[in-house]
């Protein structure tokens, strides 16, 4: 029998510290598979977030530089401006990219920085214990919104990817979900495209990945994945938000 599925080369063989059923682990694998397939492991540099994935360097077997919370896209800008021929990617949660890092994120997109951003949207602040995130859904529970998010009191969810579409320097923005195997396959395609955009020097690319957080949503993994697929997509529908790459549609 032939082995047809195994761990990607660009991932270190360490056990993931992520919770059972966490979307991060899947997304890490997809990014590593893409790095393998594009043959760019030796010139890729990653910038992890502050958040559960702060230890992403324990998994991605590429040069990695830590950034303060929210500043990954500014740090990535500095890296890319110096290392023009390298592949720079950021891997950020919803707080990192769309709350504290909003300005750095939008302006990196606006300047058209040739960087690939992976935006993991799980509607919560995972590492710090489940506080409200900019993408927490109305009614969704969190530790800082007693009774669930109330739009009048706490504001409505923010669609950062849509905001980035306004920035002329952004070239490819897609939202995907790892809640189903079909979604996972699409997510990988999108991530690969986002890296290809950087290789072709076209501009700023971002993939927003809807990702379950069973622990802070207080659901078992299977239920959390269902919820991501059925409920999160009501506010954050999957699909292409912007694509001016000129690549042929698959």
């Amino acid at each position, binding site marked *: 029998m032939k082995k047809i599925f195994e761990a990607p080369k660009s991932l270190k063989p360490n056990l993931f510290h992520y919770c059972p059923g966490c979307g991060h682990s899947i997304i890490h694998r997809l990014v590593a598979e893409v790095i393998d397939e594009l043959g760019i492991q030796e010139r890729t540099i990653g910038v992890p977030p502050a958040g559960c994935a702060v230890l992403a360097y324990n998994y991605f077997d*590429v*040069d990695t*530089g830590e950034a*303060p919370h929210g500043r990954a896209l*500014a740090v990535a800008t*500095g890296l890319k*401006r110096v290392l023009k021929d390298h592949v720079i990617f950021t891997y950020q949660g919803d707080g990192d990219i769309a709350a504290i890092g909003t300005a*750095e994120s939008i302006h990196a997109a606006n300047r058209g920085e040739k960087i690939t951003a992976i935006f993991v949207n799980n509607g919560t602040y995972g590492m710090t214990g489940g506080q409200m995130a900019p993408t927490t859904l109305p009614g969704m529970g969190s530790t800082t919104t007693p009774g669930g998010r109330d739009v009048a009191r706490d504001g409505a969810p923010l669609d950062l990817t849509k905001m980035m579409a306004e920035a002329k320097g952004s070239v490819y923005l897609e939202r995907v979900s790892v809640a189903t195997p079909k979604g996972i396959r699409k997510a990988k395609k999108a991530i690969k495209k986002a890296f290809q955009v950087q290789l072709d020097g076209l501009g700023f690319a971002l993939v927003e990945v809807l990702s379950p957080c069973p622990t802070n949503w207080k659901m078992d993994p299977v239920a959390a994945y269902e919820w991501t697929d059925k409920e999160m997509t009501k506010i954050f529908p999957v699909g292409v938000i912007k694509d001016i790459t000129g690549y042929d549609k698959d």
Partner: protein
Amino acid sequence: MAKQLMRGSHVLGEAAVRAGCRYYFGYPITPQNEVPEYMSSRMLQVGGTFVQAESELASINMVIGAAMAGARVMTSSSSPGISLMQEGISYLAGLELPAVIVNVVRGGPGLGNIAPAQSDYFQATRGGGHGDYRTIVLAPDSCQELCDLTFKAFDLADKYRNPVLIMGDGMMGQMMEPVEFPEPIDPASLPAKDWTLSGAKGRPSRVILSLLLNPKVLEDHNFKLVRKYDAVTREETDWEEYLLDDARQVVVAYGTAARIAKGAIKRVRQMGLKVGLLRPKTLWPFPEKPLKDLTRVVRQLLVFEMSAGQMVEDVKMAVEGQAQVHFYGRPGGVIPTPDEVAHQISHYYYQAGLMEGDKPSKRHGGVA
């Protein structure tokens, strides 16, 4: 090399470029707007990179990225903008990254004003950011020193893998003086750095981080930084001694204040007062030893700052009670005159009974 007449903020930019800096990230703020303006065109000329970032916060983080990639990189700002950079400076120190940050100090706190001041001494030397770290702080007093200390800043940053801050002020940024620039350094000729992020080709992948969750590990890292800072203190402390040989009273001042103090000292010397100046050129590491040594013969110090009194605390600590430390300061961007400083000097001089023929007043610690 012929001298050039140049404005201080331009001198900073030109010196940085000649020192091999090819990356500048900054944001406009008065009174240092001329620095990013100068860099925006100068970088184009030398094939460097200039980015006007969306804030000082973004600027310092771009500096972090470029430093990780091994480049000589600079940013500049003024007081409120430097406040925004404190998180980044703490990270630069924890990540052990070289970078040069220029503060062209203005009146504060808060929005303050755009006049020159020295009220960021605490911010520069007492952290400003979080954690056990030190920023090397250089204090030029002229356009020539702005040039020389910029070269030194890049060297020190690379040598110690630490952020270095150049403490200017609004006056220095605007004034024009003749400057002799050293020959330009080709960045390609700088020694290679073996710790940078460059892509894991032919070697294991590298991580540059400051997150060390295990307290024992972080403690070791902190002690490693302490040993680094001890080395900086031993090797790089710098100061100027002006008319100290026969001084009975010594003024301690830096930067623009030191120039004003020299003017004051010239005036009182004409009246027969034996006064000298000790001018720290590194605010951190602070010249503690020379000050302490001075107290063997001098017991009267007058600290003069364009602030409400910040460096005076370091002077008091340095002399360990062996001298009287007086203070004169004008905060808020007021530029004192040599005359008014001379008045202060002579006031304390007479009060301590330091005049020729006067019996030295023991109460004031006067020395015969």
